């Protein structure tokens, strides 16, 4: 928390935080913020700022089926923020559990877990996603499963390295000589001292996962239509992108702004935790 406070004093990270916060607010308050029902067909292919039949304005225009793009982006934030959050949490739970065990116990536990992680890491990520989603079918839960499977090994490696380092410190030795049980040592002595680098990684990873969800949507492997989904919107609009660029440009801006916001925030947190470590 203190690191976040320090990070927000830098303009770049404050902007990053604002971009992320904007989309989170959109996701939470979508029904109040969106001017129209994201699924309701109105006038197809309206350009931005055109008048709507009810006297309102299609600020970002409408798509092929006449749905308001702004409303779809706002509702689409729900998909991305919610599923990216769930998927990242799931990947972290798996990666942290494995990493703590490997780093604390070492030996055979470490070798087996590290081997499994390396096997998964040796696959191209996108191929892995496609394989999993095609096999299991497109649904939110399967996206979570795919992201967990693909991301947990990388998280595992970070946590493992941090745990090995922290486990060599004297306060962990002290806990061992007190007869403290292994789970408590891992959760009380090791994990809280590893959070700094993990939070930074989490920001970046959330961005990648958001992009992944967009990519899956674009490939038609995301949430089944008509759920508003930024990647899916780019896919639907790409045939007419030359004539109606707004179909593609705005969802793309949405994806990149979320990603950029998270990256800026991660940079700021990294600098702030470094400064904190020095002080």
């Amino acid at each position, binding site marked *: 928390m203190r690191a976040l406070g320090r990070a927000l004093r830098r303009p770049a990270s404050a902007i990053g935080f604002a971009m992320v916060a904007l989309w989170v607010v959109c996701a939470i308050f979508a029904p109040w913020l969106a001017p129209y029902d994201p699924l309701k067909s109105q006038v197809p292919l309206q350009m931005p700022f055109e008048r709507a039949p009810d006297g309102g304005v299609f600020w970002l225009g409408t798509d092929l089926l006449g749905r308001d793009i702004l409303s779809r982006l706002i509702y689409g934030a729900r998909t991305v923020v919610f599923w990216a959050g769930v998927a990242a949490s799931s990947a972290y739970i798996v990666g942290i559990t494995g990493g703590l065990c490997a780093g604390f116990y070492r030996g055979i536990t470490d070798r087996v877990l590290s081997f499994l992680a390396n096997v998964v890491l040796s696959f191209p990520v996108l191929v892995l996603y496609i394989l999993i989603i095609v096999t299991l079918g497109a649904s939110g839960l399967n996206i979570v499963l795919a992201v967990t499977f693909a991301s947990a090994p990388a998280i595992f490696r970070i946590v493992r390295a941090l745990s090995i380092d922290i486990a060599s*410190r*004297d*306060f962990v*030795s*002290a806990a*061992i*000589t*007190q*007869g*403290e*049980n292994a789970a408590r040592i891992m959760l*009380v*002595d090791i994990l*809280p*001292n590893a959070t700094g680098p993990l939070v930074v990684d989490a920001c970046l990873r959330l961005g990648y996962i958001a992009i992944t969800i967009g990519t899956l949507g674009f490939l038609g492997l995301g949430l089944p239509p008509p759920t508003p989904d930024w990647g899916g919107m780019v896919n639907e609009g790409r045939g007419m992108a030359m004539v109606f660029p707004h179909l593609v440009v705005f969802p793309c801006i949405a994806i990149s702004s979320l990603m950029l916001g998270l990256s800026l925030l991660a940079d700021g947190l990294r600098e702030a935790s470094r400064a904190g470590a020095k002080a």
Partner: protein
Amino acid sequence: MRAAVAIEKLSVALPSDGDRPFAVEEISLEVAKGEILCVVGESGSGKSVLASAIMGALPHGLRHAEGRIIFGGRDIAALPEQELRAIRGRHIAMIFQEPMAALNPAIRIGEQIAEILEIHEPEMPRAEREARALALMREMQLPDPETIARRYPHEISGGQCQRVVIAMALAWNPSLLIADEPTTALDVTTQAQILKLIKALRDEHGHGVLFVTHDFGVVADIADRVAVMQRGRLVEIGPVAQVLNDPVHPYTKQLIAAVPSLIPRARPEPAEAPALRLEGVSRFFGPLRAVDDVTFDVPSGGTVAIVGESGSGKSTLAKAVIRLLAPNAGRTLIEDVDFARLSGRELMRRRRLIQMVFQDPFGSLNPNRTVGAMLTRAGVLGGLEAGEAKAQAAELLDLVGLQREALERKPEAFSGGQRQRIGIARALAMRPSIIVADEAVSALDVSVQRQVLELLERLQRDRGLTMLFITHDLRVAAGIADRIAVMQRGRVVEFGPAVQVLLNPAHPYTVELVAAAPGREWQSAQRAAQAQ
């Protein structure tokens, strides 16, 4: 005598959020040519800042505020970086505490020395550079310089590294050598050799030496004059004999009184019954016999000090005894149960009996937990109810001399000495009968060191604790131990009552260790004077 450097009213400002405005405040002193001036003080006294100020290399955030540094007739504090660079390394040279860190790990020793020659005189032919590098190494009494020149820093010992660093510092025959704790990271016997070398080189070249140290024993062995610093100010300066034997300033008196003596203190003879028996304890790492067949008893309520140099296996022995490492062979009997063979629940249950106090006061406490949480949890693991453990935590803080407010704080709020007290309280929270202290006072300043040792002694008396005290410092062992075990290359080469081992050592290695203890001659002279 001409001055090698004269400092006039030098002040170095700390950043505005520091605990005081100046790291070094209005210091005036001179180092004459051919003189060794020791600057002594405890951590935070500003002695290292003074050294780096003369080098013109202040740590980040510090600023030269006022005063002049006269070197070679010029005020070098006012010189631009460009001109300073020509002086630094050639006319003023510096050696550091960590010789390993001062050398580039990826470049061979010979090339590193040659590089120093090249920096200040690029035209010197390669062959001459190499020949001069070898000559320098020979002058530093490095064995077989041709071989060492081809080695990398990690392939030679710490003492040899420090000789290489000194060779690099003296490559251009500077008129001032600044040494910042150059022997602190070294073993005593190596320290004695390096001190001798620094003196011999000074005699031969006649350069001035500004020698920063925290150890009055080292001061007694090497200094011509002594400057004592406290919180950035110079409190006393004078010839070595006068400052050591007849200090004027109360702070100097206090520091000198806190210097541990090599003469063992009289202690009541401990009970015969052993609380801890080691029988043939061994621990190997591959072919390395880190601990090799160690056998001795620790009398109940008594203290055995294990002394030895780095790599002697004393810390590994401590870890094997407390079961942070499993011993390969041998028995460690506590209450007639072989602690080395226990496992699972029985081991967890009996761990309570033997607790450890660690060396590093910064690494041994979890920075994320409050002191109260640590002590309470230790009490619970020691078999108390949560409420009792909480009450005990508060009592323990009283016992180790800390305020009860400490319960709510995290380790970052405490100094090194206070943290060590917390570490001791944590060990006691489990109500053990044996305490293993692994270099528990090595990281502390002498006055704090003395307080912590006194605390340990008092606790031992009041609670009947048995102690296994690991230290590299014979003077600390002399102050606290009933018996001393001397370790060399994994084996105990001498074991006996402290008085006998220190005053009448039998094994040649013990003789060497005792002889190398810094300040030995000064202390025995002082004692003789007191006896009269």
